[in-house]
């Protein structure tokens, strides 16, 4: 490169000099990302906001109707309210259950069991496969009227177990079970966090005669609050957006009686089956605001319970 003058200039100054001369270079590296940002992310975001105030079916032009979509969502659409309720239930029950299990198993695995890495992999497998259509189909069979679960329950003496998938009271439960089943990936993140907890803290607690329970609550939990926080945010955001499992298990319907009508599934149906593009866009923005609100809440309360060692 011509910019390099070899006359012993300090490297820092040199770098500044070079960067002034080649001011366009960073933008060459950023070009694909910038095009993506404008064309695939920000542009569509703005378009989506605009569309949410219109009536649009892909044919003709979007027709401006003001806040009517939003008004209709909250006052005149029982299916929307059902979808919101189903999704909130899924998040509020599924995420804490999944994280508690992930942490519990991670703590057991972290005791330095031989073959730990084998166990870790085995436990991770459901996470890896859990978002596939194949596993969703499997779930549909397992929790069906003559599925694996009921065959086992009958062997155990329950003569008439319900058809879990087809009962409104239980259908969502099967999907929550599927979510909890995929606890492997937060577990791996917990394991990485647990390994960072300084051993001398436990040794000091041993000297003081602390038992396992006390150490878990007074050392382990406080020391990994950043990991708990990180995992909660991650899992919450993805649970709000769950789609595939609900679609496959309910055959794309969200039934029975809307009991598995996940938010994303209802949005998909409005957009791609009813071609209510404006309405679906309004739904997307409501979801966005809700997720942002939850995330903001988590961050704003995190100062009170998340402990960063050395203020990292």
């Amino acid at each position, binding site marked *: *490169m011509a910019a*390099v003058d*070899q006359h012993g200039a300090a490297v820092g100054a*040199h770098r500044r000099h*070079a*960067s002034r001369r*080649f001011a366009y270079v*960073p933008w060459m*590296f*950023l070009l694909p*990302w910038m095009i*993506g*940002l404008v*064309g*695939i*992310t920000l*542009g*569509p*975001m703005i*378009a989506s906001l605009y569309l949410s105030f219109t009536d649009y079916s*892909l044919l003709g032009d979007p027709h401006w109707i003001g806040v009517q979509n939003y008004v209709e969502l909250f006052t005149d659409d029982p299916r929307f309210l059902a979808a919101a309720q189903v999704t909130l239930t899924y998040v509020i029950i599924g995420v804490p259950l999944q994280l508690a299990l992930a942490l*519990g*198993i991670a*703590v*057991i695995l972290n*005791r330095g069991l031989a073959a730990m890495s084998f*166990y870790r*992999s*085995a436990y991770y*497998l459901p996470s*890896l*496969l859990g*978002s596939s*259509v*194949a*596993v969703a*189909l*499997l*779930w*549909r*069979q397992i929790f069906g009227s*003559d*599925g694996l679960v009921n*065959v086992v329950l009958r062997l155990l003496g329950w003569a008439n177990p319900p058809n879990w998938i087809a009962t409104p009271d239980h259908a969502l439960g099967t999907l929550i079970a599927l979510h909890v*089943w995929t606890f492997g990936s937060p577990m791996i993140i917990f394991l990485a966090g647990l390994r960072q907890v300084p051993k001398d803290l436990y040794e000091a607690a041993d000297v003081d005669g602390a038992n*396992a*329970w006390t*150490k878990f609550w007074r050392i382990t939990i406080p020391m990994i609050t950043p990991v708990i926080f990180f995992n909660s945010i991650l899992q919450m*955001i993805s649970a*709000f*957006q769950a*789609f595939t499992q609900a679609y496959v298990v309910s055959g794309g319907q969200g039934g029975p009686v809307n009991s598995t009508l996940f938010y994303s599934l209802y949005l*998909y149906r409005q957009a*791609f089956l009813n071609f209510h*593009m404006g309405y679906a866009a309004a739904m997307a923005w409501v*979801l*966005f605001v809700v*997720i*942002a609100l939850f*995330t903001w809440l988590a961050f704003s309360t995190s100062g009170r319970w998340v402990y960063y060692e050395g203020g990292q």
Partner: protein
Amino acid sequence: MATVHTVTPPIRRSGSLSRRRRLGRVWGHVIIIVFGVALLYPLLWMLASSFKPNADIFSEPGLWPKNWTLENYARGWTQLGIPFSTFFLNSFVVAFFSVIGNLFSCSLAAYAFARLRFRLRGLLFAIMISTIMLPFQVVLVPQYILFHTINWTNTYLPLLVPKFLAVDSFFVFLMVQFIRSLPRELDDAATVDGCGPAGVFWWVILPLLRPSLAVTAVFTFIWTWNDFLGPLVYLTDQTKYTVPVALNAFMDSTGATEWGAMFAMSVLSLIPLFIVFLLAQRQLISGIATTGIK
């Protein structure tokens, strides 16, 4: 959780306690193994059931098929009129180019954010981070309208082009963090030796970035292989279906009667994931170890 309080017996080196500790370990193994078997049982059962006649699937909770059959595989393969080989090929093509796209575009952007100085870097970085959290639903509808308008629906372009434009900012962030942990002296040495930014990127950063690239490749493959919504929305022609949409169409066409054949195809659809899982463990663990060392 009931399991939590049995954990972490006191770590001490005295004799009486080490026996307790050993006992605790045995219990740890027992809990982990029993629970693990329960966890993986549905998957094993699906594998076993793919070799059972349909009637047996609904009566046999066990793993060993009484009446072995390969018929499920033969019937499933052609159930949709188009052989499943077509769907597998489609899925591989999509996954392959997605991986290439993410490796290429995310590493370029990450290098710029981590090492180069430019105007608005802070702001753009903040925007990049915030797009990680952006729910896909927000852009789903307008993206569809966009790709519909330029006649890209029923092609793989809506699935692939975004990958070449670093839209998965999670990976950009991952790589930025990794590059920041690399000593700057390496860049400086290369600069003194006459490398420009492109040279530093290619000769210094990329080779060292390999663990992050491996993580990106593995997760991109897994996510695109499993992706259902994208192909469901964009692909209308059955010959273009990827495996997940094909499986779903299978379900729709047989209406929950052909479980054996469906399980057979489901098992096949999971094999590539399983292979990646087996092969990529080393890279994944070394990737985690490398970032752990920093």
